[in-house]
C-alpha cells in the first residue's frame, strides 16, 4: 500500500512543470523519513534532570558561539551543533572535567561551522569569541573524537529538512506568503523546540510538523487551517504529533516560550552559568518591551 502511494505520488510529480528546482522534483524526502531516527539523541537520555541541566548550559553556549564565527550569523550552525551535542553526549561517556566539557561544546560548534562555511578559520573563531586560553591542538583532538563517535555522519537530518516538504501540503500561491509562514513557524516554534531538551524524544519530522500546525498569535485563520493539510501526510504518526503539540502548548500556556524569542547577547564568558529562570524571564521581557514586541 505504502509503495503504491509513493508511486502514485511520483507519477503525479511528473506533471509538475512549475517546479524550478530539480531536486525538489526528485523528492529525496522518502529517504529523509527513513533515516531521521539515526540522527536523534539516544531515547530517554534527556529524561534525566542532570542531563537536561547540562544541555541547557550547552545550548546557551552553542547559541553564543554560533553568533560569531568570523562570518555572518548562520542560524544553521547552532542547529547542527546542538544536534551533534545531543547525539554524542547521549551515546558516549561524558567528558569528566569542566574544561573538557567546554572544549567538547566548542568543538561541536567548530565542526558545524566547518560544515556550513568553506574558509572557516579556527584562530579567527577563537579570537572573536575571546577564547584565548583554548589551544587549537586540543580542539583538533576533540574534533577527532566527535567525528569518530558520530562515524562521520555530520550531515544530520534535522527538523529543518522537512519544513519545505510539509509547507508544500498547504495551498499557498504567493511566494511571499510561504516565506512568512515558514519564518513564523521557524522563529516562533521550531527553534524553541530544538533548544528544549524535552523535545529530543520526538522525531525531527514531528517537530517540523508541530511547528507548522501550532497556533500563531495575531493570525486570523483558525488552527484547523494549519492542521488539516498535514493530516493527509502518510509519513506522519498522528499520535506522536499530538503528544508533541500538547507539550508545546503546555509550554506556551506557561509562557515559557517568550524567553527563546530573544537572541542571546553576544558577550562571551567561559562557560555561562544557568540563570535563575525568573530572572531570565524578567530580563527578556524587559528587552522585548524595549524592542516593542510586547
Amino acid at each position, binding site marked *: 500500500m505504502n509503495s503504491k502511494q509513493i508511486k502514485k505520488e511520483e507519477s503525479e510529480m511528473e506533471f509538475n512543470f512549475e517546479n524550478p528546482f530539480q531536486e525538489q522534483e*526528485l523528492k529525496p524526502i522518502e529517504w529523509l523519513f527513513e533515516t531521521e531516527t539515526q540522527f536523534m539523541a539516544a531515547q530517554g537520555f534527556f529524561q534525566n534532570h542532570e542531563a537536561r541541566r547540562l544541555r541547557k548550559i550547552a545550548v546557551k553556549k552553542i547559541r553564543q558561539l554560533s553568533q560569531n564565527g568570523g562570518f555572518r550569523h548562520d542560524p544553521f550552525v547552532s542547529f547542527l551543533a546542538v544536534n551533534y551535542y545531543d547525539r554524542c553526549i547521549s551515546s558516549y561517556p561524558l567528558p569528566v572535567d569542566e574544561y573538557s566539557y567546554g572544549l567538547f561544546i566548542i568543538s561541536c560548534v*567548530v*565542526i558545524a561551522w*566547518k560544515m556550513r562555511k568553506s574558509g*572557516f578559520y579556527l584562530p579567527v573563531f577563537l579570537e572573536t569569541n575571546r577564547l584565548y586560553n583554548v589551544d587549537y591542538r586540543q*580542539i583538533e583532538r576533540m*574534533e577527532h573524537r566527535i*567525528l569518530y563517535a558520530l562515524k562521520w*555522519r*555530520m550531515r544530520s537530518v534535522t527538523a529543518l529538512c522537512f519544513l519545505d516538504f510539509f509547507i508544500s501540503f498547504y495551498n499557498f500561491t504567493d511566494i511571499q506568503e510561504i516565506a512568512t509562514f515558514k519564518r513564523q513557524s521557524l522563529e516562533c516554534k521550531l527553534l524553541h523546540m530544538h533548544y528544549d531538551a524535552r523535545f529530543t524524544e520526538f522525531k525531527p519530522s514531528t517537530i517540523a510538523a508541530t511547528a507548522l500546525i501550532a497556533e500563531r498569535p495575531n493570525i486570523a485563520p483558525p488552527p484547523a487551517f494549519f492542521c488539516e493539510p498535514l493530516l493527509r501526510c502518510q509519513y506522519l504518526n498522528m499520535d506522536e504529533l499530538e503528544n508533541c503539540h500538547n507539550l508545546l502548548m503546555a509550554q506556551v500556556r506557561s509562557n515559557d516560550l517568550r524567553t527563546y524569542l530573544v537572541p542571546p547577547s553576544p558577550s562571551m564568558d567561559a562557560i555561562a552559568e544557568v540563570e535563575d529562570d525568573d530572572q531570565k524571564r524578567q530580563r527578556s521581557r524587559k528587552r522585548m518591551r524595549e524592542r516593542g514586541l510586547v
Partner: protein
Amino acid sequence: MEKYKLGKVIGIGAYGIVHRGLNLETNQIVAIKRFYTFDCKNGVPYTTIQEISMLIEMYHINIVKLLDVISNTKNEWYIIFEYLDLDLEKYMVTYLKDSMEKHTIKYIMHQILSGVMYCHKHRIMHRDLTPDKLLIDLNASVVKIADFGMARAFDFPLRAYSPEVVTTWYRAPEILLGSPVYTTAVDVWSVGCIFAKMLTRQNLFAGASKNEHLRKIFSIMGTPNERTWPGVTSLPYYPAGLPEYYPENLEEFFPDLEPAGVDLLSEMLCMNPARRISAHRALQHAYFKKKKRKEKKEKKMMILDPIEEEKEEEDDDDP
C-alpha cells in the same frame, strides 16, 4: 597507514592528491586520497569533514565505495576508496568496437544515470562528471562514479556556488553564463555530453575558450532567449551581439541513434535548467523502456523452464 602502500599519483585536485595504492592485508587495489593541510592551526580541515561526511552516506553499486578514513598525528588525512584501473575515457579508446555497440552504450548510460539519481536523492550534486571520472569494472560489467572532490551538498537552502566547477566541455550553460545558483540539472547536462561523446567519440560542444564553447552550444541547441529560458538575458555572462541561432536537429548529428535516444539526449541537453529532464525521469524514458521489455521476455522464457517453475512454486509455498 601501515596497512596500505602508496603507489603512483593518479590525480591532483584542488584539495588533495590521489594515489594508486595497495591494501597489504587483502591485496586489493585502492585509491588513496591525501588531503593537503594548508594550515595546521585550523584543526581537522573543513574540506575533509565536508567530503567524508558526504561520501559516508552513499552506498550504491554505481558509486565508488569509501573503504576507510585514516589520520595521523601530523593531522594528515587519507581517504581510501575502492579503485578500478579502467575508466570510461580509456575504455572508449581501448575497446573501440565493444564500446560503440548500441546496447553497451544504453547499459552504461543507465548505470551512470542510476548513480547520478542516487546522489541527487541523497542531496548531493557531483558537479564534475566527465568520462575519466566514471570507472569501469569489466568483470562485473559495472560503471562507478568516482571523485567527489568537487561535489557539494545541497540540503540547506541553495546559495551562490563557486562558478569554476566542471571541466569546460561538460559544463552546463547556466554555469558558463555565470548563474549564481544552480541545481542538480548541471550533472544531467554533463551526462548528456558524455552520452554524445560515447555515440560519436567526439565532444559535441568543444570550444577552445569559454566564449567559444558557449557559441558552439548555442549554434547547436539554439540561442536561448527570455521565452525559452526566462531570466537568461540578465545572467552575468550572457553574450551581447551573438547571432540568433536556431536549434539544430540532433538526429543529423547522431544518425545511428534510435529516435527515443535522440529525444532523451535533447531533453538532457535542454538549455533551460528548469526544463531539463531529471536523472529520475531520464531513467523512465522510452529509450530505456525497450531494454526492460526484453528483460521481461527473458524472464518469461525462464519461467517456462520446468526447473525454474518448480522453484517458483516452492517460493510460493513459503509463508
